[in-house]
């Protein structure tokens, strides 16, 4: 009955989608499964297949660095996401006030995202270094009491990582919010003004709630960047002072590759993935249920 072309047309979309799906299944989920397997083996320099059960996990949780790395990720992700969102939103709102020179300011805010941290890490390192950077310059300019030595301070160094990370991505977040603002129907704003809302209330009660999708997108992209932050730490602090700025991504790399403890590295990767899944699944579920 069914003519061939029609039947083919029915299957074509699935056919076209299948290579992508296959690639994702193999190169992402297959590899995750492989990593999960490795985390139960005594792999050191290269993968090995000798089963050791949960030994790697118990070793991992016995390592002080791992606790430091987890705690750092908590601090880093929280501050990074919050500050980026706050700065991004502020800049977007300000830039949306018919600003002269918007065309010039926008790329200035955006460009850090274009640069790899291999590139900018050194510049930041110098800038934050009290001996040669900002503090030094302030002293030269006569502000002798100025102090800014966080990068040298074990307790504060993680915050310099936050500063540099915010520098890199807040412009991108700004663009997302700006796009969201430009997408809001003007009539809603006019109506709110006629209702007597002050600018402050206008944004707080009307605009910001309407930006919900932009907030969600920003959250996904920022959390993805936070979890993957690696270059940043390596270039800026090298994980130091001491190991004070270790993050799970640097931890994973160092155990897998430089310390020849692939099993422990794999275990840390599994824990990281589980954490990401725990955070992202509710978001994905909500997102997909709405539209599905």
């Amino acid at each position, binding site marked *: 009955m069914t003519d061939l072309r029609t039947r083919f047309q029915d299957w074509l979309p*699935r056919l076209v989608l299948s290579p992508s799906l296959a690639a994702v299944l193999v190169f992402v989920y297959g*590899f995750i499964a492989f990593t999960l397997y490795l985390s139960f083996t005594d792999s050191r320099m290269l993968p090995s297949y000798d089963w050791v059960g949960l030994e790697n996990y118990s070793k991992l949780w016995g390592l002080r660095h791992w606790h430091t790395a987890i705690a750092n990720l908590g601090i880093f992700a929280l501050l990074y996401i919050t500050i980026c969102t706050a700065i991004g939103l502020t800049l977007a709102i300000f830039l949306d*006030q*018919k600003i002269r020179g918007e065309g010039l300011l926008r790329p200035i805010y955006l460009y850090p995202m274009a640069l790899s941290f291999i590139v900018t890490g050194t510049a930041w390192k110098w800038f934050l270094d009290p001996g040669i950077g900002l503090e030094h310059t302030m002293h030269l300019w006569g502000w002798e009491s100025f102090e800014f030595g966080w990068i040298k301070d074990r307790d504060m160094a993680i915050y310099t990582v936050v500063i540099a990370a915010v520098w890199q991505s807040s412009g991108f977040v700004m663009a997302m919010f700006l796009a969201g603002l430009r997408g809001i129907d003007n009539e809603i704003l006019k109506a709110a003004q006629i209702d007597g809302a002050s600018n402050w209330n206008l944004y707080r009660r009307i605009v910001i709630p309407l930006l*919900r*999708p932009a907030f969600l997108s920003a959250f996904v992209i920022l959390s993805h960047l936070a979890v993957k932050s690696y270059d940043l730490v390596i270039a800026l602090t090298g994980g130091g002072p001491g190991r004070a700025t270790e993050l799970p991504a640097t931890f994973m790399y160092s155990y897998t590759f430089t310390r020849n403890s692939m099993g422990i590295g794999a275990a840390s990767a599994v824990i990281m993935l589980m954490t990401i899944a725990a955070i992202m699944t509710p978001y994905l579920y909500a997102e997909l249920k709405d539209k599905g």
Partner: protein
Amino acid sequence: MSHATQDTAVRTGRIARTFIYLVLLLFALFYLLPFFVMLANSLKPLSEITGGNMMALPQDWTIAPWLSAWSTAQIGVEPTGLRPYFLNSILMVVPAVAISTVIGALNGYILTKWRFRGDTVIFGLMLFSCFIPFQIVLIPMARMLGLMGLAGSTPGLVLVHVVYGIGFGTLYFRNYYAAFPTELVRAAQIDGAGFFQIFWRIMLPVSGPIAVVNIIWQFTNIWNDFLFGASFADLDSMPMTVALNNLVNSSTGVKEYNVHFAGAILAALPTLLVYIVAGRYFVRGLMAGSVKG
């Protein structure tokens, strides 16, 4: 897709405006500072850097570091500068971005206009794949590339970048096409257009804004990637970032910071160019797609 106007209809007073300009300019300064440090130091002789203030403007202006970084600095055993690796990166990044954009567009098109049972699950799988840490894929990926005979080649690198670009590409295009009226696809079906004809003739021509977003995103990520480049390339396919890393990160050699900075800026030029040229469409593209939940 309605065209939103530029004007927010919000009125602000003189003092408020001054304040806004002040904040905007301060942030512009904040964003420009590291670039200033890089630029200023790339134009100084080395002695002025190691001996002096790194925040100061050069006293002896020189472009020698730039020339050195471009064509004579030592990357490997030969003093080639970054020049030859530039081409390698272009040869890698252009096909990778093009292919991953087409794949993202096709996936987005299928997942919104040719829906079938289980399509949201597939999308969820693709989206979550964005979060895989690249460190864990290194070893198994090397094995796969070896099995496919693509190890140490540009096509191999392109494949890797395309695979890990599927997630975001699909996300961007899916969100964009979700707002695109399905009736158009139906009309085209009745008009007799097939799956690919609808894609090429109806969908792609209106995908400009989101394609810009995807291209900027993928271009930045692929151009700046170091891990895959260092692991899966050989000399003939070694990308710019690996060369830059060789220039900057030598462990026990003399560090020529001025050359490093010049090289760093050179290596970043293509992405900067993409941002500046495509940047004006970027916000528009985000507006049309990715931020609409």
